[in-house]
């Protein structure tokens, strides 16, 4: 599950693997591993997304995304395209926007679920996503 999530976010397999490892390590140490699935998955999505965003923003070079993610999932082609766009602009986008965008676009969450994961209001999430979409439009133009 963690690996699948990280592979959706990061094109580079090694990088996805690193983030998966780090997420797992934190899970192992956090003591949340015995919690019910809803809480556990929220923790995993929140932590791994944060770690992935940190990676994306630290990158100096973009990664060549040439193929759908491992284990093609619904909308794999669209996912690849979305990831390309994200990686192109990651360094210039605030982390909070990136997190919301990843959860919304890659993990197929609605605004309410994104808000739950990020611990913010739906209104905040809506604003973050709107700002992100505007940036994407600018990039496309």
């Amino acid at each position, binding site marked *: *599950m963690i690996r699948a999530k990280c592979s959706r976010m990061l094109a580079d397999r090694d990088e996805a693997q690193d983030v998966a*490892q780090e997420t797992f390590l934190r899970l192992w140490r956090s003591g949340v*591993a015995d919690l019910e699935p809803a809480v556990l998955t929220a923790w995993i999505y929140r932590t791994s997304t944060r770690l992935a965003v940190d990676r994306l923003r630290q990158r100096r070079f973009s990664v060549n995304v040439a193929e759908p993610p491992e284990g093609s999932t619904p909308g794999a082609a669209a996912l690849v395209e979305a990831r390309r766009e994200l990686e192109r602009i990651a360094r210039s986008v605030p982390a909070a926007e990136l997190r919301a965008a990843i959860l919304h676009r890659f993990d197929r969450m609605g605004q309410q679920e994104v808000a739950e994961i990020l611990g913010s209001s739906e209104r905040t999430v809506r604003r973050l996503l709107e700002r992100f979409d505007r940036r994407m439009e600018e990039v496309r133009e």
Partner: protein
Amino acid sequence: MSAHPSFRDLDRVSLGEELPAVRDHAAGCDACAAYLAELPGEAWSGLPAITEPPRRRLRLFAWDGARPSRLALVGVPALATAVAAVWLAALPRDEAPPPWLAAKGAPSIAIFVKRDASLSLWDGAAPFLPGDRIRLRIAPQEYTHAAVAVFDRSTLGWSVLFEGEVRGSEVLLPGSWELDAAPGAERLLVAMDAGPVRLERAPWRREILLPKAAPLTP
């Protein structure tokens, strides 16, 4: 956002949570069903009972009848398993990794221990208890075949528990083994090669000592 449920909802279902709407969707959606099928959680609910009779008795008992995906555990411990092998490679140096742990880029082995309802990664030193089940995950690197054997003290030779291809970055071996109550440590040999493995000539061999706790006396 999408006609599909979120991946998190699918993950929750795979961990055993009852989400009827998600289940109903997956039942009629090939893509979501395929995603769920790739996650180990749900399949693990069909574990063979721990009391299932072993098929062969060595120092370890082979449990070779179950599919690989059904040999792990339910829920969160299973989640831990999915990444535990790579976790080994990421252990900080001050956490005293097991002596058989390989450097990054070299073949390595992770041993998982199931004790009652818990699953953990063996630290390379903790003694096993009778009834513990172990399962191996191998990172074969450049090798394509592996063999696992246990030393049989009655014949003074190696008894092969597993032999086969191990292509991929990490391979969970299809079988787990239960430790019996016989006294003394068990010797496990893992060998790898670029073709079918001959135990004595394999270019990569590691012998692992599995210590056992002394049996409780009444």
